[in-house]
Structure formats: C-alpha cells, structure tokens
C-alpha cells in the first residue's frame, strides 16, 4: 500500500541543486551585467515611460517572488501593498507637497506597516489557505480604498506631480525620472539577491523544504516567515510608490484583485524561484498587454490561457527552463 506521504509532490519552486561554489555563480553575474547594459541602452531605443513601468512591475514581481520562490508562500493579495503604497505616495506628493523621494518613502513605510499587520494575521496558515486569506484581506482593503475620501474613489488620485528630487533635480524630464527608477529597481533587486543568499535566506529555504525540521533545529520559523512577508510587502510598496510618481496616478486598478493576479502571472511566466524570472515575466506580460491593448477584453482571456499553459506545460517558466536546459543558476 502506498502511503500518501510517499507520493512525490512537486513543490511550487523546484528544489535547488545543492549549493556548490561561491554564492554568486558566474551565470548570475553575466546575466546581471547583461541586464544592467540593457537598462542603460534601452531608453535610446524604446519609450522610457514603458521601460520605467516595466521596472516598477519587475520590482513588484521580484518582491512577490521572494515569498513564493523562497518561502513557498503564495500571496494572492500583493496588490494590497502595491496599491496602498501607490495611494499614499501619490497623496504625499500631491496634497502634502513632499519631494518625490519622501513621497516614495511614505508609501513604502505604509506598505511595511500594512505588511506587518497582514503578516501577523496570515502567517500561521500555509498553502492554499494562505493564498485565500491574503486574497480576502486585499479585497477588504480594496473596499476601504473604494470608500475612503483621500483615494478619490473611482477617479483615483490623478495629476500627481513628479516634483524635484531632493528639491534639486526636476523629474518632469523623462531621463531624470528614468535614472531614478533604474536606481530604485537595481537597489531593490540587489537587496533581494542579497537576502536570498544570506544566512537568513538559507533558513527561509529550509523552511520551504521542511518546516517541521527547521522548527526541530530550533528556528522560530514564524518569525522568519513574518520577516520575509514584511520585506516582500515593503518592496512591493516601493514598487507601487515609484509607479505612482512615474505614471502620476494612483487608482483602484492598483489595489484590485486582477493586479494581484497579474503579478502572480508575471512571476509564473518568468519562473518561480528564479532571480531573473520575475523581471523577464514582467517584461513579457507588459509587452503583451501593450501590443494587445486594441483587442480589449481578449487580453484577459489570453492571460488565462497563459496561466493554464504555464501550469500544465512549463512550470519552471521561461528563465527556469533556460536555467534547467543549460544547468546554470539564474
């Protein structure tokens, strides 16, 4: 008789091969250099505004991936942090007249606070329960955003001024804004990379693989998971705050559940639990949304098809498949 526990279960993020050699493998360094080159060169070939949007969503997806890829927790409510940070950043810049960096900090700090509260409520549950609870909490905060006065209800907060960075550099110039976004994105990315490869990150992976074992080794796993959750929420908030300044708008779209679905899709397409996957995923999905904008609602249908195809056919995602094929870490 086969014990259910013996049936091989493929976890969401594939078990990594035993870490050999230095923390930063060669392939990762090469990919990082390529990515930085693209960031520097790309604005001369395509719209900076689109690239800035991609970087904001890429950072959002990377923050989401920190949870699903390294702790094994699927949050279906990350729009909560992205959207509310976006609102607060927009509000701070427009109504309080703060400089952009302070507005972004305000939004990010708010996301951290929300992350702590949401984390305390959700962190004891796992798997699908965790996904359902985060989704429900995000929906609750969506209703708050719909009713609160300062969010502007259906209109959102429009016409957010980009302002002057540190009161000196005028961000209404696209390239100035681009450089700021690129710095924020790179900083966030490197922070995540650092966290994932730190002793803290190793404990997270241990919890993902076998939480009971991690507990028996004396780790207070709840605290580790909570910290990872808050970190992920904070970085999602950083992405949302920056997006509000870049696009000069914060709206209900940012807090609603399809936004949470979008970030799941980006990460899934790029590759769960890969460092570069969420970035590629954000690029692919946003490009698709732009190119297919004329066909209207069919975009949603196509996204649904991509979800189904990814789950059935290539669960490793684009970057995951490439890394698997060449047997490298990406």
């Amino acid at each position: 008789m086969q014990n259910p526990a013996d049936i091989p279960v493929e976890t969401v993020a594939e078990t990594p091969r035993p870490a050999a050699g230095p923390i930063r493998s060669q392939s990762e360094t090469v990919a990082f250099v390529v990515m930085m080159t693209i960031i520097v060169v790309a604005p001369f070939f395509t719209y900076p505004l689109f690239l800035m949007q991609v970087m904001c969503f890429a950072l959002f997806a990377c923050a989401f991936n920190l949870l699903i890829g390294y702790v094994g927790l699927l949050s279906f409510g990350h729009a909560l942090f992205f959207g509310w940070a976006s609102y607060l950043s927009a509000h701070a810049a427009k109504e309080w007249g703060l400089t952009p960096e302070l507005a972004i900090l305000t939004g990010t700090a708010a996301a951290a606070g929300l992350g702590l509260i949401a984390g305390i409520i959700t962190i004891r549950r796992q798997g699908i329960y965790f996904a359902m609870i985060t989704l429900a909490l995000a929906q609750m905060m969506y209703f708050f955003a719909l009713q609160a006065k300062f969010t502007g209800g259906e209109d959102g907060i429009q016409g957010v001024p980009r302002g002057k960075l540190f009161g000196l550099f005028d961000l209404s110039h696209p390239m100035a804004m681009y450089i700021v976004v690129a710095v924020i994105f790179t900083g966030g990315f490197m922070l995540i990379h650092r966290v994932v490869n730190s002793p803290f990150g190793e404990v997270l992976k241990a919890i993902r693989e076998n939480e009971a074992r991690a507990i028996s080794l004396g780790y207070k796993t709840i605290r580790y998971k909570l910290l990872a959750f808050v970190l992920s929420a904070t970085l999602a908030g950083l992405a949302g705050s920056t997006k509000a300044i870049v696009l000069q708008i914060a709206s209900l779209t940012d807090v609603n559940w399809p936004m949470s679905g979008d970030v799941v899709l980006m990460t899934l397409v790029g590759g769960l639990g890969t460092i570069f996957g969420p970035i590629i995923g954000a690029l692919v999905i946003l490009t698709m949304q732009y190119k297919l904008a004329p066909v209207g609602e069919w975009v949603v249908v196509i996204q649904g098809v991509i979800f189904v195809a990814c789950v059935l056919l290539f669960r490793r995602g684009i970057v995951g498949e490439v890394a698997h094929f060449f047997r490298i870490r990406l």
Partner: protein
Amino acid sequence: MFEIFGIPSQALFGQLLIGLINGSFYALLSLGLAVIFGMLNIINFAHGAQYMLAAFTAYILLQTLGIGYWPSLIIAPIIVGIFGMIVERLFLQWLYKLDHLYGLLLTFGLALIVEGTARNFYGSAGLPYRVPDSLQGGQNLGFMFLPNYRAWVIAASLVVCFGTWFIIERTRLGAYLRAATENPTLVRAFGINVPRMITLTYGFGVALAALAGVMAAPIYNVSPQMGSELIIVVFAVVVIGGMGSILGAILTGFGLGIIEGLTKVFFPEASSTVIFVIMAIVLLVRPSGLFGRSV
C-alpha cells in the same frame, strides 16, 4: 409598524432577508468548494466563473430557445457540470501529484478565460432575468413583505445543502467518497473506480455552483463579473468555517449572510468588509477556522 433598536422593523427584516439570500449563495458555493477540496485537494478558483456561466446559460436558453426558469434550473447545472467534468479530465487530472497551489493557479486561469469571454460578448453591464410567473408576488407577513421568489431561494438552498450533507455523511456513496478522500489507493483496491468518482465529484461541486447561479439570475443581474465578486467573499467564508466539515460550511454561509445583512442596517459603511474583518479576527483567535481541523 414598530421599531427595534430605533430601526423600523420593515428595514430590519428586509435586510435580514437579503442577508439570508446572500447566505444561501455563500452556503451553496462554499459547500461546493468544500466538496471539491475534500476529493481533489484543489481550491476551485473557477467556482465563481462557473456560477456566472450558469446564470448566462439560463439567460441564453431563455433568449434563444425560449426555455424558462424551471427547466433551466435543471438544464444549466447539467451543462455547466459537464463542462466542469471536461475541465477535470482535460486539465485538473494532471495536477493531483503536484503542489496544491498549482490547482489554484490553473483554476484562476480558467476563471479569467470564462469571465473574459463572457465580457467580450455581453459587456460589463448587467442583463435582467425575469422572476418566473409562478413565483411572482409575495406574502405580507404583517411585520414585513416576503417576495415569493426569495422565500423559494432560501428554502431551495436549505434543502440542497442538507441533501448534500445527507448524501455525503449518511449514505453508502458518501462513505465511499469519504474513504477515497482519506486513502484513495486502498479504496481502489476494493474495486472502486476512484478517478471516475473524482470526475463526478468535481462535476457535482460545479453543478452546485451552477444551481446557485441560476437561482441568483433573477435576483442579481446576470453579468460577467457577478462570479469574481462573490467568490472572494466565499473564500473568506470558507476560511472562517474551516474546510473540514460540510455542516460547518453550510452554517457559516448562512450565519455570515445574516451578519452581513444586520451590518447593513446598523453600520452600512462596513457591510462590504464585515466578513473580511470577521475572518481576520477568527484567524487570530482560532487559526484553523470555527469548524476546521488544524492543517
């Protein structure tokens, strides 16, 4: 006309009735989710989309073939149930040995496909569906006016819910189901076709959502987003009740519907969030839900 806590009784009982109606749908949907989860270990994110699909099926049957409410009440769940079984055979059956999250992701994709398609053909505006002639009008109970159709929905969903509970907890078929949930390999060794049972269970769970969808059509307008709005609330209901028990799903569904209705009377601003707030509190006090076993 009299007042309770300063609220006119008409308003109070009217909202209680709406709460019971909502509760009926919460109960039917969370019951379907629980049945499917018990057997397939999949949270059916497409549940709301299937509920919406049934409402549209009833609408289309009426518009194109002139088939009315009562036949639709049978036909639509069968059509949508078969659709569900096809989905299970085509997609879900490949996921049973994977992490449960993949089932959630795949059914989320299905929900997007169904909802997006409906929106393409019918737009976002709601389409009206007439209350059947036999249930027009209502009863004046003295303290409130009770529309016949709403009384029927509450009664029907109570019967269906307890019928389902009876089948699962008190019949031989239900015993097979519960046994297959515990240990599918052993049940197969007794010569029971477990994969077919799984397919039929999924079809049944989907048909429950479909039945709710047809019953909802005359109350709410038929619209593509009717399902996704509801399913997230139902998720919260499921989390509050805990997934372990059928009876728990039914009781929580009705109970939360009533609480939501009462909130609409006493504190209208919170009526759309009260269920989520209750969920947060329950999670802090009893993480596995009111009726749940710890997972």
